[in-house]
């Protein structure tokens, strides 16, 4: 067990994958000599060579498109998209090729590609550097989508994603890169919790609070704050965004009768809508109140002096919790 930052844990996980499988190949802009703008691939090109850790030309569609070709040839490419906002030029190769090739070929061609995306806001960046595009991918059949919230999961799940025979979008909460946590590097991957399972991180009986990636920490903080006021929040770290582990969510909501979902992405059409809709379908008779979404607004990601307003924080989450509980909240006195 060692104390590692999120970033080092990812680095260690990538290293392990490179060591274990000669078909694993890392690709991206500035990932070689520089080790990536966030240093996630630091030192890997030096140790594994330029053919395993590949600096690519500045072309995102090219990165994913060539990864598809490498997968055709039996490789397991791990692509870094430098920032969330720069994944869109690759959108066509992701949704029309990477996601569909297994279906198209009736399983004859596998696409074991992992796309790593540092995502989300909160670090005072300029435009296009703080986005949360996960809902575009959770709506795309053929992809698996995960997001990690702590160094241990970062270490384990990056290896699980790379080992998956299906394409995986791997969302890394960039504002947590410097957070430290215990990481058991010796842990057997086969023993680890499956990448597709959600995890109850704080137990509670009053309200279910679902979060993923950067907001898991905020959600845990909210649970602590709420406990002081006598409200027991059950925090669930979603981990897999597609498919979502509904059984775990269902079990919790059947217990609490109340659901709050939080994410940084804009509300309309965000993942929260899917969770609210599905849990309402599955637990209608158990719900004491409508599921509540605490999310970014329906605006393009704003400039950094306003981002703390856009991003859900502890207070806004607690306001959402109050809404599900019918306690005084921002909408008190209004209907709905």
């Amino acid at each position, binding site marked *: 067990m060692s104390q590692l930052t999120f970033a080092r844990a990812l680095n260690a996980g990538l290293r392990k994958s490179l060591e274990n499988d000669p078909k694993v*190949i890392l690709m991206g802009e500035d990932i070689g000599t520089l080790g990536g703008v966030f240093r996630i691939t630091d030192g890997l090109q030096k140790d594994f060579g330029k053919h395993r850790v590949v600096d690519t030309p500045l072309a995102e569609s090219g990165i994913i*498109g060539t990864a598809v*070709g490498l997968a055709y040839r039996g490789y397991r490419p791990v692509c870094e998209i430098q920032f969330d906002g720069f994944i869109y030029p690759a959108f066509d190769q992701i949704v*029309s090729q990477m996601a569909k090739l*297994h279906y198209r070929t009736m399983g004859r061609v596998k696409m074991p590609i992992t796309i790593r995306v540092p995502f989300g806001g909160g670090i005072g960046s300029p435009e296009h550097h703080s986005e949360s595009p996960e809902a575009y991918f959770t709506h795309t059949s053929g992809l698996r989508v995960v997001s990690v919230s702590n160094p241990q999961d970062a270490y384990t799940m990056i290896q699980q994603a790379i080992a998956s025979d299906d394409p995986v979008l791997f969302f890394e909460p960039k504002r947590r890169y410097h957070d430290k946590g215990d990481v058991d590097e010796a842990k057997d991957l086969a023993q680890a919790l499956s990448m597709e399972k959600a995890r109850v991180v704080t137990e509670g009986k009053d309200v279910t609070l679902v979060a993923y990636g950067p907001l898991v920490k905020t959600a845990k903080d909210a649970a602590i704050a709420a406990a002081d006021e006598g409200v027991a929040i059950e925090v669930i770290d979603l981990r897999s965004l597609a498919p979502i582990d509904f059984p775990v969510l269902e079990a919790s909501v059947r217990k609490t009768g109340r659901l709050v979902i939080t994410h940084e992405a804009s509300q309309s059409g965000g993942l929260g809508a899917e969770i609210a809709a599905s849990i309402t379908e599955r637990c209608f008779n158990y719900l004491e109140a409508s599921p509540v979404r605490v999310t970014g607004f329906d605006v393009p990601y704003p400039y950094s002096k306003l981002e703390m307003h856009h991003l859900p924080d502890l207070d806004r989450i607690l306001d959402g919790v109050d809404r599900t509980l019918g306690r005084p909240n921002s909408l008190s006195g209004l209907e709905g």
Partner: protein
Amino acid sequence: MLEGAINVLTDEVGPGANSPGGQGNGTTNPLRTGGNLVQLISPAGERINHPEFDVWIKDVSDYQLLSLYEDMVVIRRIDTEATALQRQGELALWPPLLGQEASQIGSVRAIRSDDFIFPSYRESGVAYCRGAELGEIIRPWRGNALYGWDPHRINMATPQIVIGSQTLHATGYAMGIQNDGADIVAFSYLGDGATSEGDVNEAMVFAASYQVPLVFFCQNNHWAISEPVRLQSRVQLADRATGFGIPSMRVDGNDVLAVMAASRIGLDRARKGGGPTFIEAVTYRMGPHTTADDPTRYRDANELEDWAAKDPIVRLKSLLSVKGLLGEEAQASVQAKADSVARELRDACATMPDPAPLDVFNHVYSTPHSWIDHQKDHYSRYLASFGGSSQEGAL
């Protein structure tokens, strides 16, 4: 070197020799594009000597020449038959290759069976020569599957409909070949319209940067649906590649020998570590874009007539006749082959099994997926609610 000469057969051929001057040293780019269209057989069917290209096809025996002819006749027959099947409602759609037989046969017959091909949607002739079954070729156009053959069995990817996308896949595959140290080559087909897509240009960036073993084979058939090639580019398409540091050739795409020679040059360069090559095969789409298209809306009858005079099959036939290789017996044998392939195609169509309803859920992922499983279960229950075994039977 002469202005407009093809540089691929000069002393510069071979690994490393194509390295451009590099950045910032002020030297002139040593690459040349083939301004002149390379032709080894004239439209009238005469063999034209071309010292640099001839060496690449000097091993082609009379027998082989005849077999190239047979291939071309057969794939035209496949095309005719499939078009007829579409008219009869047996196929939903068909993208004809009429007029492009020399481009397809000349290239595919130059490719080794362990090389890997990335086609567009029009390379049915290539697929046939590669060993795809006739049923596999028409299956997607009948709507019985997204695609037909197993890419790993015939070393050829399934048809690509998103224009230009496959060129990046080919580039990635070639990066893999390079990593593996294998002596094979990735071969990517693309159309003239495709050259405008960002992906094709990014493919050239990657291919040139890593100097991967790859041939870009562009069939300039003069049209992208209703758009003439001059809308995509005011200069020859072969010129595009040199701007990326990729040597290029421009050959008569209705001349099976010129196409074969050019393909061999590109494949050989790639195999020897010399990096990518771009070939522009100048040909003509004599039919509609697909069976859903009506080309009379956008092109002149005259243009079609001009190109009919350059028909790739007629041309090779003349050459064979002059050489005395196409006697009655040979002619009959080619005809018989074409007839039998046509029958086989029609049979494959007629006997193609329809899918079962629940197939819609298969192969989305390679391992179980809770959402799909849930929906499949739900839908099978739904189908069962109508009674009977509809989810298993044919539709």
